[in-house]
């Protein structure tokens, strides 16, 4: 309601008025347990289906903003690593992934979706530890939507010809993808799922602040 509507002749100065939402009826903390989270001390680059050390051997820490404690060390990729990743992705694209029947590709994407669902709670807690967003958001939005995106695009994998009748449906190649920091897992899902479902391969750079 606009403040004018109820102004009476004896109206007080509204700018001085405030409500006390703090005192009385204090809530007990309801923390999400982090006890079941098992993080490795160090994470490598994932190239060609394997965890590999960076060529120049660089690493950096990733921190929990709530405690400012280091969660893990993460490999820092350089140009050499990116070249390696692109070559591997090109190889996978030309020899395996783009040749695979769309129906078979879909099965892999469905599997990714189910794996995310199976470990949803764990991912949500890690996302919150890493990014500092509220558990409500990571638990109710980031992780379930990420799984939903993989389910959605898995379903599309073998149906594109019906969606665009008369047009030739074909994959494009290797996609380079850069993910922002505010929805690290969800935005990755937005970009990886459609690329993979349509027969492309991916080289992905997560946000270095959150990964």
């Amino acid at each position, binding site marked *: *309601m*606009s*403040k*004018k*509507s*109820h*102004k*009476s*002749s*004896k*109206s*007080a*100065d*509204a700018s*001085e*008025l405030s*409500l*006390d*939402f*703090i*005192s*009385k*009826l*204090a*809530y*007990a*903390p*309801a923390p999400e347990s982090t006890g079941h989270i098992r993080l490795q001390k160090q994470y490598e680059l994932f190239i060609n289906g394997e965890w590999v050390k960076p060529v120049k051997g660089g690493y950096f820490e990733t921190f929990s903003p709530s405690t400012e404690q280091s969660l893990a060390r993460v490999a820092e990729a350089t140009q050499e690593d990116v070249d390696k990743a692109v070559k591997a992705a090109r190889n996978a694209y030309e020899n395996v992934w783009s040749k695979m029947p769309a129906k078979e590709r879909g099965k892999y994407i469905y599997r990714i979706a189910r794996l995310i669902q199976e470990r949803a709670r764990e991912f949500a807690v890690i996302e919150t530890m890493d990014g500092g967003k509220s558990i409500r958001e990571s638990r109710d939005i980031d992780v379930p939507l990420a799984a939903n995106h993989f389910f959605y695009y898995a379903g599309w994998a073998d149906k594109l010809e019906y969606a665009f009748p008369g047009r030739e449906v074909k994959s494009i190649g290797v996609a380079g993808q850069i993910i922002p920091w505010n929805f690290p897992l969800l935005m990755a899902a937005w970009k990886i799922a459609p690329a993979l479902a349509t027969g492309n391969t991916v080289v992905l750079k997560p946000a270095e602040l959150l990964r």
Partner: protein
Amino acid sequence: MGTTIKSYNPALSPTIDQVGVEERCARFQTRSIKDETKIAGLKLAMSMIDLTTLEGKDSVGKVQQMCYKAMHPHDAFPGIPQVAAVCVYPTMVKVARKALAGSKIHVASVATAFPSGLAPLKVKLDDTRFAVEEGADEIDMVISRGKFLSGEFNFVFDEIAAIKEACGKAHLKVILETGELSTLDNVRKASDLAILAGADFIKTSTGKIQPAATMPVTLVMLEAIRDYYYATGKMIGMKPAGGIANSKLALHYLVMVKETLGADWLHPDWFRFGASKLTNDIIMQLVKQETGVYQSLNYFSND
């Protein structure tokens, strides 16, 4: 009462996002209230109850028994606060006033041809004056829902203003009967109208119509009170009535009050529960918190 506002303009009431209100209400139910806060919350809820009997079969004995319960909630377990008020029909006011002598418990009376409100203004005013003369210090009036729904806002406004004048020093609670107003938009309009017309409290329901008080309806009314406070600095009280039968739900309401209006309203002067069953449930919960075990209903008085 010195107010310069002579009418109500419905265009100044905001529209209500029903989905958003329901979502917000769902969130109020997820707060973590434990241990001392829970006990304090239950005692607070107890002290906010308007212990009510509004049956055609009400007798002197029934009202006396209820007043005893109001003053002695559970003598086997000291420390449980008395309720804020008892609420009865006008003809029972004198009985209640006598039975409550010496206590600080208020006597509230419904008036204005409760629960339908379908009587001439003169009858309503007489009804109100009678209750006040008999000793009621709070009057629960009903608005003319038929007039409100047909858009005769000024009729309803004038009626409330006239009753307010007839109340004299007694506090006026205006019952919107939200179960008959169909939409949350109407609830907001009726809230704004009643507040502007001079209500000291706004109240959801008579308890005779289903649905009675619900959390969404109460939230809309609390927001009307909040907006009026921000605009004028004047506090208006709130009373959800009917349908609040257990302690857990009462605590959810208190959370809603805390997060909408803040700590100042967490007081029997500004927030009341119109309820009868709630009393025993709160007593049971308080006994359980203290002793660790639930007792059989047989150990609590029926009224």
